[in-house]
């Protein structure tokens, strides 16, 4: 095993672990905001690390792979957070309230706060 393969393998492993955690988070988290947390941060880093790892492994034969992979990483860094932002914003405007564990009022706690805020906005 060459040094490229070792470093690339470690990067790919890190990426795989983070992607797995992201998938687990999407499955396990209770509401959309928490799921977005898991689905954005973990999978962005995971995909970036994995793609960079592939670039490092392939760099041994052909250095242009690294450039291509860097371009892909830049696009992932752009698109993934932006799309998650759009989703979260849409959910916020659709009045999907976060989930609170062991709260008797549950969703109502947030709903009340939000309704008060909206009333304040209307008065202005």
């Amino acid at each position, binding site marked *: 095993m060459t040094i490229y393969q070792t470093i690339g393998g470690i990067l790919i492993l890190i990426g795989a672990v983070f992607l797995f955690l992201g998938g687990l988070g999407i499955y396990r988290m209770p509401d959309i905001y928490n799921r977005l947390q898991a689905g954005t941060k973990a999978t962005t880093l995971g995909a970036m690390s994995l793609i960079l790892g592939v670039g490092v492994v392939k760099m041994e034969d052909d250095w242009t792979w690294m450039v291509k992979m860097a371009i892909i990483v830049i*696009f992932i860094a*752009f*698109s993934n957070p*932006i799309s998650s*932002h*759009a989703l979260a*914003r*849409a959910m916020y*405007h659709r009045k999907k309230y976060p989930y609170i564990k062991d709260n008797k009022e549950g969703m109502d706690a947030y709903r009340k706060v939000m309704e008060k805020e909206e009333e304040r906005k209307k008065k202005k």
Partner: protein
Amino acid sequence: MKKAIVIFFLAVFGYFMAITFLSPEFEADRNRNGVKDFYLEKTVSDLKTANTVTAIVVNFRGFDTLGEVTVLFLAATALGSILFKKRHHIGERTVLYPASTIVGSGAKLIFPAIILLGAYVFIHGHLTPGGGFQGGTIIATGFLLMLISYRNFSISHNILSVIESLAGILFVVFGFMGLIYGGSFLENFMGTGILNDLFSGGVIPVIYILVGFKVAAELTGLIYTILHEKG
């Protein structure tokens, strides 16, 4: 009871699926009339095209592709004519919440990349998987992104229809040029070049570029019409 019924229907469904997939036995000779071998040989030896699917779609069955493009054109025209009466104000559409600045800036950055990818897909249609239809659809998604991100992003319907008509007419013109120079409609009359080169395959890349432009224009027009529907 419910579960038993569900299991029964699943069993029936699975039985017929199994029959469907098992009826032509595995490893049986499916190349009974030699069409597969003919296509594979001719694609490499005569047409010098790396992508066999493209060679079949554009060259061996180019006339069918012309029909497909016509179907798409008719669908777009029909939808436009149905929705046209409902559109009172072009350029105004009801949006609950406009997209945020972040989405807008991101869309501006990604839009040229999407157009580039679409152009790449249809220009390299004869070398790599993909082609005119796929590339055109990718370009249309780029315009969809811009339309979602900006409320007042407008596309001129006249330019779209001009591109669409020009691409369609040029497709037919190339078909007739094949008739004049080669002997049959959509005959591959240009030099085929070297296998795996960008400029190879004769008339195939030219036609796929035209199909790409046509599909992109049609789908963009469709998306635009649907988004600006009133009500």
